[in-house]
């Protein structure tokens, strides 16, 4: 009898976090780096909700609520910074952002 255990959800959250982390590591487009960050936060959210469900404690779900707030804020500010960078440098790639070097 194969049923879903909480460990299935934890492995799924690990996979989501790893995929997002690889995206942050290997992509050069800053828009995609921001999207990968969102994916990492989603993986953490899945783990928090599954722990909250198994221990019947609402604290994990409330933390997910705050994580969503902070993630939305971070995306708004990050994209505004990206637009400001694009106005100045005409590029959204991470290798063109070495402002202190040249």
């Amino acid at each position, binding site marked *: 009898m194969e*049923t*879903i*255990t*909480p*460990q*299935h*959800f*934890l*492995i*799924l959250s*690990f996979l*989501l*976090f790893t*995929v997002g*982390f690889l*995206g942050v*590591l*290997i*992509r*050069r487009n800053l*828009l*995609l780096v*921001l*999207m*990968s960050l*969102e*994916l990492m936060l*989603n993986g953490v*959210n*899945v783990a928090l*909700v*599954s*722990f*909250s*469900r*198994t*221990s019947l*404690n*609402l*604290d994990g*779900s*409330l933390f*997910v*609520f*705050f994580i*969503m*707030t*902070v*993630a*939305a*804020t971070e*995306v*708004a*500010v990050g*994209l*505004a910074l*990206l*637009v400001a960078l694009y106005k100045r440098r005409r590029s*959204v790639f991470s*290798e063109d952002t070495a402002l202190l070097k040249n």
Partner: protein
Amino acid sequence: MNAVDLLFYFFATLAVGGGVLMVFSRHPVSAALFMIISLVSVAALFVLLEAFFLAILQVLVYAGAVMVLFLFIIMLLDVGPEGGKVSRLKLITGFAGCVSVGILIILLLQLFGTGIGDNSSWPSIEMSPYVNGESLLFSTSIKNFGYGLFTKYMLPLQVAGFLLLGAMVGVIVLSKKSLPTEER
């Protein structure tokens, strides 16, 4: 294998597959669309975990607001597919990446080795009280969310409100046109 298992595997595959396709897609617009697939699948997994309010919030905030903002910015900046420029991986970047991947592998070994959450089952949810002693009880109703937010998490809620206000002001300042007197 019952229906819930099939739904879990379906949406888990969709979430991870959407994430992988997002990371490896060349065009930013298709990456954003794959990301939306991944986020909606995560919302479906929240439904399977009986966190219905968070599932609605995931669809509204992430798939609705955040990804629309991403698509808007992608189309505003008119970012095309990446060219053939080779990225130079610096030594310190490679070192940091190796260390982080090592920590992730240790985490995976811990996850399998200690069998955390392996033999624990899903306890049933009782609907009546908000609190059990000190801890807030998990519930499917939004009432418990409101109770938790306005009692135990009152200060974090207000800090989150100020964070949103600060972000709004910051974005307005960042995206404002610089005054013409500054340029001359």
